[in-house]
């Protein structure tokens, strides 16, 4: 049973891990799918009062592997790649180490299935708009057409690189075909650059907001602005260089070394190390405690209004 989730390095195989293309593997895949579908239909008949326990059970079991992996005793400097576990406790600990990867990846695989749900919903909304000829339905058409074209050329390009390019010739643009060019133009030429443009636009809004809304009306606003101002001034090397020159000149003319403490980089460095970092750390502590509490409540099914409600 401990072979379950464990890696079997080819050509070694076990009950859970079969060589590709073998009857055993195909039977396993089909069988597991049928069991999954039976589970699907079985669950759909569960009475209302038991549903919460089903969801809490799945959530708890999924999290348990990680909690055990962290808390399970493990000999110091154990290297189970080279050494065999000496007893059942060590054996279970070694198994937890290799089981983590396939269990954790389950989250991504399920999330990927659910991502399709988001795209399906988006398409449904826009297709309905087109069918009803709602206002600005033309834009919905543009959205659908551009997503379909991107998907077609994206898959086409992937298919060519994945299955028809053993020599990796397509890494060089000289060997590109029509689909590779179109995919590159859509992805790198448009999508990626539009992404960068979207993010960069925030700078314009920040400038406008700073001009209109960043007002010194309270002690809090003044403290925040002073902190931000010192940090921003310190970001300007030309300014800190001139300031340092001025301070060094003062130190030389007066002989007072204490004045070096007024060097902008020194002031900014002190502020960052002794006030900004602990303040941010406090914020992170607060967020971290909240995340820990939320994590435990979700795992144990105590969260009201969560998935288990």
């Amino acid at each position, binding site marked *: 049973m401990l072979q379950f989730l464990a890696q079997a390095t080819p050509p070694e195989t076990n009950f859970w891990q079969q060589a590709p293309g073998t009857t055993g593997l195909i039977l396993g895949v089909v069988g597991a799918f049928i069991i999954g579908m039976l589970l699907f239909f079985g669950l759909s008949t569960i009475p209302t009062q038991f549903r919460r326990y089903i969801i809490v059970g799945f959530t708890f079991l999924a999290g348990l592997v990680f909690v055990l992996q962290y808390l399970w005793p493990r000999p110091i400097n154990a290297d189970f790649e080279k050494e065999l576990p000496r007893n059942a406790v060590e054996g279970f600990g070694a198994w937890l180490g290799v089981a983590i990867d396939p269990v954790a990846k389950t989250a*991504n695989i399920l999330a990927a299935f659910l991502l399709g749900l988001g795209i399906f919903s988006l398409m449904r909304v826009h297709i309905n708009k087109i069918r009803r000829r709602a206002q600005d339905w033309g834009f919905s058409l543009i959205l659908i057409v551009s997503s379909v074209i991107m998907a077609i050329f994206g898959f086409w390009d992937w298919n060519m690189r994945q299955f028809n390019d053993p020599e990796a010739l397509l890494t060089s643009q000289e060997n590109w075909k029509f689909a590779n060019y179109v995919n590159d133009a859509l992805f790198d030429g448009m999508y990626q650059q539009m992404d960068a443009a979207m993010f960069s636009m925030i700078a314009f809004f920040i400038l406008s907001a700073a001009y209109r809304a960043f007002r010194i009306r309270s002690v809090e606003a003044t403290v925040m602005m002073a902190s931000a101002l010192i940090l921003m001034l310190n970001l300007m090397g030309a300014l800190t260089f001139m300031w340092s020159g001025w301070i060094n000149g003062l130190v030389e003319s007066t002989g007072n070394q204490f004045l070096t403490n007024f060097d902008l980089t020194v002031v900014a460095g002190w502020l960052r190390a002794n006030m900004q970092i602990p303040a941010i750390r406090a914020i992170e502590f607060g967020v971290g405690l909240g995340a820990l509490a939320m994590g435990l409540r979700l795992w144990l099914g105590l969260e009201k209004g969560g998935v288990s409600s």
Partner: protein
Amino acid sequence: MTIWEKLQAVDRRILYLILAVCVSAGLFITIEIPTDPDPSSRDLYQAIMDIPEGKTVIIQSDWTNSTRGESMGHFENLLRLLMSRNLKFVFYSAADPIAPQVARTTLARIIKERKDEGLYEYQIGEDYIDLGYFANAEATNLNMGIDLRNAWSGKRTKKAGAGEISIWESPVLKDVRKIEDAGMMIVVTASASIDVAVQRLNKKVSIGAMVTGVVGPTVLPFYQAKQVNGVAVGLKGVYDLEYCMANGVNLKDEDGNIKVLNKGGKEYPKITEGKTLARGSKYYGTLHIALILLILAVVLGNVGMAMSRKKPGAKRS
């Protein structure tokens, strides 16, 4: 209507235009600006320079074009620095499926840049390995800490003259059995993937970070607690590293001046092959203009508000 009230009512589009014009103009003026690198950036440079020869570096490249303005400069600096030290490296992404392609494009450009300069051309499988994308940052980093060979099991790389080989047969990883064998792990990111790396690989490997300005403040507490050994934050971090590469640390120039000082620290050489002052140097002057513009905007906004209030009969807001 007074001048202050007019200023208060200025159209936002005028502000946008001023920013666009100032930033564009700044790009055509390139001068080397002296700076005092942040201790966190300087420590990153020193940590990379301290990596023993022959050790392999792990790069987690988690940035995409959306933060190109900062992260591309970080990644370029890192590649130039590692290549100038002849260090082998592995790169992958654990945060965004687009990230490996963006990293590949940048890497290809830096290899070509060095080739054009007559420098050694890094070879896949021989000097570096591209591991692609790992779908789950948490699981990937956790597994890398528990069992690196399991975490990267089944991965293969192309190698000139040998076709496709297992990554563990390649000179890049043949001496690496566990994460502790790596010279350093450097995370280039625009997201909290640096947090995940620190959380899962705590103290198992020396971690360095190259992050965006948005992520930077949350990484500095890690730096203070020595959970990461150096952090380059945002565009300033890009320029800081370039400045260290161009001038070394505690290194005297021809005039006997030390441009990058680390009191009590040892001397680190400057980089003598390939580009040092590059993208960061090009953008840093323009950043000055943009920041001055923002500070002016805040000052003018507040002065305008104060002066408008002073006007007899003006409505207090």
